[in-house]
């Protein structure tokens, strides 16, 4: 018999950043909220005081979901067998207080205005035939202009660092000339850049391109946020992605929204609490969630609103697992839409150069101490005579290089990563070579989706999520184009030699890290025919269930999702506070 808890206004699945944002916005106005977090507690001190330890964090994944308990299965297409990702590879979802937003990289983007009306924009400019066969790209249902003030609020709450490129239509030198207009600039100046980034920027300028410093959620100087949280400035220590920040320079829930929410006294986080499913009542509305604690005891937490605020993949699984008489195929899935429009990202390096005898200081800094161009991203360049749509960022390889997981990528002349000749290679060249990296769009297709795996189960006996994903022709063509552009830039950077060039995209595999940006599956839209939720993340068929995060994105633009996750969540929080709680269980319009 499950332990029954007292009713609360809102229960969230996961205590990551979107849950913390909602709590900071709602609990300070009297809403009672409980977050159920599958991992443990951690705070900047003491947990990150001594974390400059590559083995523990980068090799043994101390901050990631424990794959011993659950993982994800993958297959390239629905006709192939699916196998579990048994050890870490393609993405690194987090667990523990604050979720993946504690070990993230801090690259902070706004999507472009054309990203939000993707399908309409392509049809208007190139005609409907330009959209690849089987591609289900669609408009988001919200516009950049609607989201702008939420982007702005999020960036100023978390102390973003960067150089604006477009303030109210006025172009600012040094910023991204392709960005959509901002109402004001960043609260903090951009981070410093490494020699490789500077070289990349000089080469791009020479080629007539428009380099700028990566906008970042890492404070470039000491800063106090509007809530009164004190943040240190970045120390460029080189232990950033996969690590917690010991001086709170990297924004995370732990140093932004969580302290505010917990101070309200209306918010509670229960750690080591694994949610099994959302329960629904006779009318089909959610009544709360069932979870197990670390001892295996089952609990029921009743709530008026359930927010599915875990990572993209788990959000999909939660809806699919929540089967009942009212929702036989899971919540939000009355029309079979959950899991559709699953997208990811293109992220390998097409070209690597070696500058013999030079030290590039690649082990310092972080993923944001780089230069980047948007000239070949989105529809910033004419696609009329190109066989693909969409684009990709190109940037100088991120820093924070660690020997233990990078020496193996260097090879001797025979292609071996061991032996006397290889030893000499890493001795002279470990810090002398660097890449140009892509981060490209991923479009949705009919044969690309997530569902429940029939063969593999988690520690609690529930089916794992199965991912069907592979590159499609559009991505291969896109890669071929940006790989050539990368090569041009690399040549202009005057390396001693080019040690690696991949003119064709390598086959997708689950083993190699790509990015922790799987998106979609519970997508937003303007009608239940084509989406799982409305633009507030409110589930069409169960209006007291909300989904947050990148699971809402109909397709994945060529930029990291977190900035947009923040803006969309801020918009939802505002709508809940101002309208939903006045008319509960009704769809927001």
């Amino acid at each position, binding site marked *: 018999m499950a332990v029954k808890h007292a009713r609360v206004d809102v229960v969230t699945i996961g205590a990551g950043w979107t849950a913390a944002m909602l709590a900071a916005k709602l609990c300070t106005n009297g809403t009672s909220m409980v977050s159920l977090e599958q991992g443990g507690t951690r705070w*900047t001190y003491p947990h990150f005081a001594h974390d400059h330890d590559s083995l523990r964090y980068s090799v043994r994944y101390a901050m990631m979901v424990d794959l011993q308990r659950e993982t994800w299965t993958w297959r390239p297409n629905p006709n192939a067998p699916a196998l579990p990702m048994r050890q870490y590879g393609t993405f690194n979802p987090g667990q523990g207080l604050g979720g993946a937003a504690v070990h993230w990289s801090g690259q902070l983007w706004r999507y472009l205005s054309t990203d939000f009306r993707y399908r309409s924009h392509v049809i208007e400019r190139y005609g409907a035939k330009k959209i690849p066969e089987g591609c289900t790209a669609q408009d988001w249902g919200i516009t950049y202009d609607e989201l702008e003030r939420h982007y702005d609020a999020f960036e100023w709450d978390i102390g973003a660092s960067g150089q604006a490129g477009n303030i109210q239509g006025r172009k600012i030198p040094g910023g991204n000339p392709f960005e959509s207009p901002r109402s004001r600039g960043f609260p903090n100046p951009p981070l410093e850049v490494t020699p490789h980034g500077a070289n990349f920027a000089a080469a791009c300028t020479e080629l007539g391109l428009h380099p700028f410093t990566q906008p970042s959620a890492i404070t470039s100087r000491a800063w106090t946020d509007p809530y009164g949280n004190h943040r240190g400035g970045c120390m460029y220590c080189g232990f950033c992605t996969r690590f917690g920040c010991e001086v709170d320079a990297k924004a995370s829930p*732990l140093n932004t929204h969580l302290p505010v929410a917990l101070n309200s006294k209306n918010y509670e986080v229960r750690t080591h609490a694994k949610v099994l499913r959302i329960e629904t009542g006779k009318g089909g509305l959610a009544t709360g969630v069932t979870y197990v604690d670390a001892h295996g005891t089952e*609990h029921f937490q009743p709530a008026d609103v359930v927010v599915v605020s875990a990572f993209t993949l788990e959000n999909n699984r939660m809806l699919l697992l929540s089967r009942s008489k009212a929702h036989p195929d899971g919540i939000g899935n009355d029309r079979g839409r959950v899991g559709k429009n699953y997208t990811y990202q293109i992220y390998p390096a097409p070209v690597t150069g070696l500058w013999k005898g030079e030290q590039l*200081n690649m082990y310092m800094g972080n993923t944001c101490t780089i230069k980047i161009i948007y000239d070949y991203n989105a529809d910033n360049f004419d696609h009329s005579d190109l066989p693909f749509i969409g684009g990709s960022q190109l940037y100088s390889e991120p820093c924070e290089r660690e020997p233990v997981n990078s020496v193996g990528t260097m090879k001797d002349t025979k292609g071996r990563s061991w032996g006397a000749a290889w030893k000499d290679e890493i001795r002279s060249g470990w810090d002398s070579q660097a890449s140009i990296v892509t981060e490209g769009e991923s479009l949705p297709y009919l044969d690309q989706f997530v569902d429940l795996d029939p063969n593999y189960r988690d520690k609690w006996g529930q089916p794992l999520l199965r991912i069907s994903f592979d590159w499609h022709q559009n991505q291969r063509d896109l890669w071929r184009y940006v790989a050539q552009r990368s090569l041009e830039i690399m040549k202009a950077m005057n390396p001693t030699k080019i040690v690696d060039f991949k003119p064709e995209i390598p086959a997708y595999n689950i083993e190699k890290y790509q990015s922790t940006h799987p998106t979609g599956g519970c997508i937003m839209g303007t009608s239940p025919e084509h989406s799982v939720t409305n633009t507030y993340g409110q589930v069409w068929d169960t209006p007291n269930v909300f989904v947050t995060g990148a699971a809402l994105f109909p397709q994945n633009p060529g930029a990291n999702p977190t900035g947009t996750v923040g803006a969309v969540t801020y918009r939802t929080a505002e709508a809940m506070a101002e309208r939903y709680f006045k008319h509960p269980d009704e769809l927001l319009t």
Partner: protein
Amino acid sequence: MKPERRITRRRLLQRAGVAAATVGVGGALAACGEEEHPAAQVATNVDATDLAAPPPTQQPINCMVTAFFTHDEAETVDAIVARLIPGTADDPGAREACVPAYIDHKLATFASFSTPTYFQPPFAKPVQHPSGPQPHATDSILVEAKELPRYGFQGSSTPQDAYRKGLATLDKVAKKQHGNRFVKLDEKTQTKLLADLEDGKVAAFKKSKAFFKMVLEDVYEGMFSDPVYGGNRDLAGWKLVGYPGAQRAYTAYELRNGPQHKRVQGLRDMPAMNPGVPQPHVILPLAGTQRTESR
């Protein structure tokens, strides 16, 4: 049955107290499920987020390999690592940096994998043809052999078993091909045999690619991770590639111009953060899995 270990209420409350005090928040951060229970068994996976655990402070005082490997196995491992990263007293390689001791210690410390690993059946079975989705698999899942590498690690042995079996097979192959154990072969022959393992060219050693990969990754770990884990003796791996190690900070000037007056150092040489605040004196297993812990 998964190994489990006991966590006492006192220790958990200590940890929760530190956490709440640190940010100075009065809000309720209840650690549900961390209450004392008659059979307070907590799965080891809790450790994965138990980041308060400091790294080991006791570095092995010598390069002894006695915890996991037998005498013969230790000899073979020593010979392998010396070919993977060769060295001399003046230019240390994996042997000189105590990499065998690192591997030995790691295999003895963890009951199975040191990195989070989903280790439930069915396991993959390579076949020579496309195999279809197989929605009702029981014993194994058939996967076309040429596609299998795309799925990453799909092994069905623990590292401990893989070492035991792999080292024995390697000696068997060495005896068959060259009439002697691996350790007795000359360096050139050893190197050639290792290259054959990596390329999967040894018919009598079916899983040689996976074995080679596992050993090579362990050699990287032993050579290039912090010396508190027993390898990287005298910071040999980091000095080799010109890495200053665990530094607290670099200035913007250093980011552009290179490190200024930085001594190569490990975790234990870093200045303390907030030295006025007491550390919780809890030593837990590193973020791994399936380690049986008695406390």
